[in-house]
């Protein structure tokens, strides 16, 4: 029977199994045994060998087969060993983490806060900056717009195309498979319910090739096509989005053919779009689409061709193989030809030679990426979001440093365990791997918790950024790329905070550790490392504090700025009677009637209305010519305009400095179809701002004249009757440019009116009264954006509030994390020096001296941190300059306040362990030995 082979033979296996020689040996054994048996039966050795071989068969074939089988078996075994090593590591790591629940909890919380902040901001980046239109091949879409000197009016950003130019580009280009345009508008929609009030929803006027070029179809009925794009005012059809169909019509299967009133214009619903597509603005869901040919028929929209007016946001799908650069090169000569033709237009009849020349030479067509559609929120949030991303990256680094710190401390207390395992033959790599598994598990737990935090956080943040009045399609639910991001940073985080402690605590210093004298923990290297980490935490959190301080001061500057009007006890709302079918003189009558009704309301001190709401971001600008003022050649004297009612300045609290306010007499009745006789839009009198006077007029401004337009020979027939103080127009922080106000009642095409109501009591309480007042006058005209002016000011500072509050939250978070780190190191230091302190106290050191002993260490760390942070802050300041207002990036007050705040908190964090040191009982401490 089998006898066991000597034990040493096993060790040959340490060099890995040698399958080849094993097989050879086994087969040789077989043949030799067989030969021996055959000889014993009387065969000659030669004959026996041959017979053995014959009975065995093909040795080479068997050998090869066995070897293949053996090698694949070895491989399977190795793999199994490897994976069972990992599960073993994970199980062990889990046990270690459970054994120190407090450390684990603090670590996971730190990471969760860091990763949560990053995930939240990344979600916003992903949803706002990286999002693309849900259409086939969005990257083949481009935006087509113009840049440079332009002559004439525009609606929007000033880069839109006019209808004639759009049409010629569409029909004559060689590079697009479709050039389409749209105009965003906000109609009042009525679906025919009896007690239904009209709802303002987002809509788009679209060209006939819009849906075909985008590649969007209908799930019910059909989309708007080329046949809906032929006759001006002749296609009363509308397409609605899937979401709107569900919300408003409950997914009614018989939706096609239903009637819909679009700003009092009866339309027929011809289709429902496929789900997911909500128009070209990704931040505001468009719900109704109407053919561009209905522009002009629907109130408050320009009618085609609208001649020189630039109002169309134009997009195109590139033909296969055409690059945006090729498209631009191809369009440039075509666009120049179109401009040359344009100059022959009647609009240019009075233009100066310079203006014509500049239009020809200083205007060009631009092709830009159009995958994100038309999303103003993108441009507005790009910089703030990247700045915030940098801030949260700082928070995460601090959190990492914290966890690394905890792990270093624990690594020190686990030195005996590690030393034992090393001496029992574990390799350093294997232990490092095991420690890294621990940190990765911490990171994974932190990542999951962070993801939950982020989801809640984003939901909260979105309220800052999107208009609460419109439904935003930006969702807080993490999608695939957010999950990937979180997974990746959790992994990176785990490696980042794990790798140093893992190597540090496996440093082979066996002998002293195993001896482990006197209960004191060995460790010089890791203490230095921990201090370095704390210094970097202090520096980073100071940077974030300075940043937050700067944003806060900017906001404060803006909030306390003199706006030129009194924002307290003031409320505002809009009313657009044209949406309810009012036309011509009746529009002005509506506004006058409503004003009278508002003024008669108890509690109202003063009221007035204007054509344009202040601080809405919108503007009405025109070049002017002032009697007796010769501007330089390229100074077109652009002036901000508005049309206001009598009593508007009184209601706003804008002081009248000279002359008089408008009266009921400053009005003009236009008969329908009456042509305006000049470029002055029919205005005869005006009130101008202080800045206007300062720039253009010497002497007494009252009785002087100006005119709209800047062409040579422009008549100046508008008489200045009053001067008011400068006031904010589009944004609180902007420069106060020259303004001119016309009498609202003199205008020919009056539309919406924005009311300003000064109240004796709390304006919030008056909001409902105003809503009722409007309903009483005409329920078909809904109140628009009814709110206090104070709320309006805060809304216009939304970006600044967003930045300052978020950076404040994150920097406080960062500082707290850093302080936990500082506290940890100091507390550990006290523990380590218990005996030393005991000796000192026994020798007569008093409590204050002991406190100083500890605090000196804390102070050193803080001072070094501050010394690193200050130059870094100076160096980084240029990055945030554009986000600041009224404060320099190196504002000394902010820096001092940040340093003081940090120092105060840091002293507190250091004081706790110092006090504990002072309470050490020397006897107890010495007996520890």
């Amino acid at each position, binding site marked *: *029977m*089998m*006898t*066991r*082979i000597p034990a040493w*033979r096993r060790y040959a296996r340490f060099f890995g199994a040698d399958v080849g020689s*094993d*097989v050879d*040996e*086994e*087969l040789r*054994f*077989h043949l030799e*045994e*067989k030969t021996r*048996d055959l000889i014993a039966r009387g065969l000659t050795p030669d004959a026996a060998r041959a017979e053995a071989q014959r*009975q*065995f*068969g*093909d*040795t080479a*074939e*068997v050998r090869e*087969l*066995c070897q293949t*089988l*053996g090698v*694949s*078996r070895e491989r*399977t075994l190795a793999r199994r060993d490897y994976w069972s090593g990992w599960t073993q590591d994970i199980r062990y790591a889990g046990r270690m983490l459970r054994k120190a629940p407090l450390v684990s909890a603090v670590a996971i919380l730190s990471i969760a806060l860091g990763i949560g902040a990053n995930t939240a901001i990344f979600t916003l980046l992903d949803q706002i900056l990286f999002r693309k239109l849900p259409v086939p091949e969005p990257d083949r879409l481009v935006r087509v717009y113009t840049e440079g000197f332009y002559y004439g009016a525009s609606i929007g950003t000033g880069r839109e195309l006019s209808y004639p130019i759009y049409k010629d580009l569409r029909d004559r280009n060689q590079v697009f498979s479709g050039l389409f345009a749209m105009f965003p508008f906000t109609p009042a929609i009525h679906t025919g319910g009896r007690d239904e009030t009209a709802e303002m929803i987002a809509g788009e006027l679209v060209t006939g090739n819009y849906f075909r070029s985008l590649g969007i179809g209908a799930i019910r009925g059909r989309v708007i096509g080329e046949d809906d794009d032929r006759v001006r005012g002749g296609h009363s059809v509308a397409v609605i989005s899937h979401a709107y169909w569900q919300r408003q019509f409950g997914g009614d299967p018989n939706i096609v053919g239903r009637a819909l009133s679009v700003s009092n214009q009866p339309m027929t619903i011809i289709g429902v779009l496929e789900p997911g597509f909500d128009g070209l603005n990704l931040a505001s869901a468009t719900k109704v689409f109407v053919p561009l040919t209905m522009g002009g028929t629907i109130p408050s929209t320009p009618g085609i061709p609208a001649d020189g007016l630039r109002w169309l946001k134009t997009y195109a799908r590139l033909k296969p193989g055409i690059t945006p650069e090729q498209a631009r090169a191809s369009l440039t000569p075509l666009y120049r030809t179109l401009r040359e033709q344009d100059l022959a237009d009647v609009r240019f009849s009075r233009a100066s030679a310079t203006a014509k020349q500049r239009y020809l030479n200083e205007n060009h067509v631009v092709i830009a990426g159009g995958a994100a559609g038309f999303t103003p929120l993108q441009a507005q949030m790009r910089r703030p979001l990247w700045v915030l991303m940098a801030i949260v990256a700082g928070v995460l680094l601090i959190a990492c440093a914290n966890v690394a710190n905890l792990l270093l401390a624990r690594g020190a207390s686990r030195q005996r365990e590690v030393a034992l395992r090393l001496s029992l033959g574990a390799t350093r790599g294997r232990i490092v791997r095991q420690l890294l598994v621990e940190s990765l598990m911490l990171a994974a737990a932190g990542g999951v918790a962070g993801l939950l935090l982020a989801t809640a956080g984003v939901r909260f943040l979105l309220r800052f950024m999107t208009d609460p009045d419109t439904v935003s399609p930006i969702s807080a639910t993490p999608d695939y790329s957010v999950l990937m991001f979180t997974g990746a940073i959790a992994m990176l985080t785990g490696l980042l905070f794990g790798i140093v402690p893992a190597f540090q605590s496996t440093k082979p210093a066996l002998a002293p550790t195993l001896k482990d004298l006197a209960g004191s923990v060995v460790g010089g290297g890791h203490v230095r490392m921990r201090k370095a980490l704390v210094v970097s935490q202090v520096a980073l959190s100071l940077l974030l504090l300075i940043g937050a301080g700067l944003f806060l001061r900017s906001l404060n500057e803006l909030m306390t700025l003199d706006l030129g009007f009194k924002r307290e006890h003031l409320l505002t709302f809009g009313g657009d009677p044209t949406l309810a079918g009012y036309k011509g003189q009746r529009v002005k009558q509506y506004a006058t009637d409503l004003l009278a009704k508002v003024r008669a309301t108890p509690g109202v001190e003063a009221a007035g209305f204007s054509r344009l709401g202040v601080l809405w971001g919108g503007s009405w600008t025109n070049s002017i010519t002032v009697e007796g003022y010769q501007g330089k050649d390229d100074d077109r004297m652009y002036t901000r305009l508005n049309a206001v009612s009598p009593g508007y300045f009184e209601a706003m609290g804008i002081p009248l400095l000279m002359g008089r306010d408008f009266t009921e007499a400053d009005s003009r009745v236009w008969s329908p179809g009456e042509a305006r006789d000049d470029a002055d839009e029919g205005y005869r009198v005006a009130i101008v701002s202080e800045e206007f006077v300062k720039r253009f007029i010497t002497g007494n401004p009252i009785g002087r004249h100006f005119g709209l337009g800047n062409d040579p020979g422009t008549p100046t027939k508008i008489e200045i009757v009053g001067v008011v103080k400068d006031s904010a127009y589009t944004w609180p922080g902007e420069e106060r440019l020259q303004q001119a106000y016309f009498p609202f009642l003199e205008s020919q095409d009056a539309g919406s009116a924005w009311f300003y109501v000064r109240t004796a009591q709390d304006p919030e309480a008056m909001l409902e009264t105003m809503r009722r007042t409007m309903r009483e006058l005409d329920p078909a005209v809904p109140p628009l954006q009814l709110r206090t002016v104070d709320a309006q000011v805060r809304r216009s500072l939304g970006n600044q509030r967003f930045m300052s509050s978020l950076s404040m939250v994150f920097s406080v978070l960062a500082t707290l994390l850093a302080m936990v780190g500082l506290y940890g190191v100091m507390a550990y230091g006290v523990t380590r020096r218990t005996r030393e302190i005991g000796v000192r106290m026994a020798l007569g050191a008093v409590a204050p001296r002991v406190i100083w002993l500890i605090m000196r260490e804390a102070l050193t760390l803080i001072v070094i941190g501050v010394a690193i942070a200050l130059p870094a802050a100076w160096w980084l300041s240029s990055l945030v300059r554009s986000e600041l207002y009224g404060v320099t990036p190196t504002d000394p007050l902010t820096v001092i306040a940040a340093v003081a705040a940090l120092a105060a908190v840091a002293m507190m964090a250091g004081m706790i362990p110092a006090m504990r040191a002072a309470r050490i009982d020397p006897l107890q401490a010495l007996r520890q030995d």
Partner: protein
Amino acid sequence: MKKASLDVVRGTLDVLILRALSWGPQHGYAVSQWIRERTEDELLVEEGALYPALYRMESKGWIEAEWGASDNNRRAKYYSLTAEGRRHLKQELATWERYTLAVTRILSATTGPAPRRA
């Protein structure tokens, strides 16, 4: 000495090996001789075929191998049944018995199939 021997299907050889090992650990040569003696050279034509079968069964976990010393103190690879191998053998034996019983019944039948009616 060529005989009209049965072609040994792989499955059968596996069962034979497992049966041989069910008496205790053996090296490959001993297993081959055991089969040869019991079957009077009917089944095992080429002894070499034994080894790939052994390796395959080792991978499946039915048997395990360990190097030991033979009776004449030579280094030899000993195979033994694992618990799983024992279970497998039991199962195979049961199947084999049912199978042979069924085949035997047919081959020793005295009446042929009934003629089919159209």
